[in-house]
């Protein structure tokens, strides 16, 4: 269903240039938000001492996630190949239900709207939404 055209890729790359300076902050906020707004996602982090917004494990993991998304931007021309290892990690080790990728993507979009209100136009929104859906699909490749 998701096809990333040349225009979509250009929009994503251009926008990501503005995101990368705030990437860790955005990642932390998106993850914090997801754990509060969609509490069922906390089940994947039962091993953390502190799941509250802005806590140390949330900060660290938010940064890890955004680094992964940033990496996906650089591999945008072949996400399936580029995200192979991450897909295996999520499929065999973490075993995250892929429905949750959509939930996290939504929270990333909310944070982008907050942090970059004038840049996150409807055109950018659709390109990023398609990109995150493509990333989610690539991450789901190895599941079955």
């Amino acid at each position, binding site marked *: 269903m998701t096809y990333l055209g040349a225009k979509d890729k250009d929009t994503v790359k251009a926008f990501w240039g503005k995101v990368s300076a705030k990437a860790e902050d955005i990642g932390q906020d998106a993850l914090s938000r997801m754990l509060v707004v969609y509490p069922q996602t906390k089940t994947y982090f039962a091993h953390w001492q502190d799941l509250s917004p802005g806590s140390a494990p949330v900060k660290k993991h938010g940064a890890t996630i955004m680094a992964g998304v940033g990496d996906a931007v650089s591999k945008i021309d072949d996400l399936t190949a580029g995200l192979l290892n991450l897909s295996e990690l999520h499929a065999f080790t973490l075993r995250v239900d892929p429905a949750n990728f959509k939930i996290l993507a939504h929270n990333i979009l909310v944070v982008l709207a907050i942090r970059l*209100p004038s840049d996150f136009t409807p055109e950018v929104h659709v390109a990023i939404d398609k990109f995150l859906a493509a990333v989610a699909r690539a991450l789901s490749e190895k599941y079955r």
Partner: protein
Amino acid sequence: MVKWTDFERATIKDIFSKIDSGVVGSAALSRCLTVYPWTQRYFGKFGNLFNAAAIASNPKVKAHGKVIMGALEMAAKNLDDIKNAYTQLSILHSEKLQVDPDNFKLLADCVTIVVAGQLGKAFTPEVHAAFEKFLAVVVASLRKQYY
């Protein structure tokens, strides 16, 4: 029956007092038609929806955005009985407009994103959670009369 905490009631009231209601409905509808273009199927009479710029400046989109906003404000004023307050709207959407109810969530997500953009840092995770709960109740109420 939906239970609202004091925090949730106060938060929802506060959000509606702070957002620019003239803009939110239209911006959210405009975003929905742009990000999820299949939703345009319900707006065949709206004229030019060919690209994001056309959608954003379309006067029928703007006008309809205000109608949607009015309905959200009505829900916010009837927190304890949104289901009944929305009976006629639900019948309208299912029998006359024949909208696939999965689309309600798409519009709700766009409303969240527009409100987040307007409130900025004030849209904390806790405020965000209260608002999404409110929208989930609105969406469920709109689905209620479908059969």
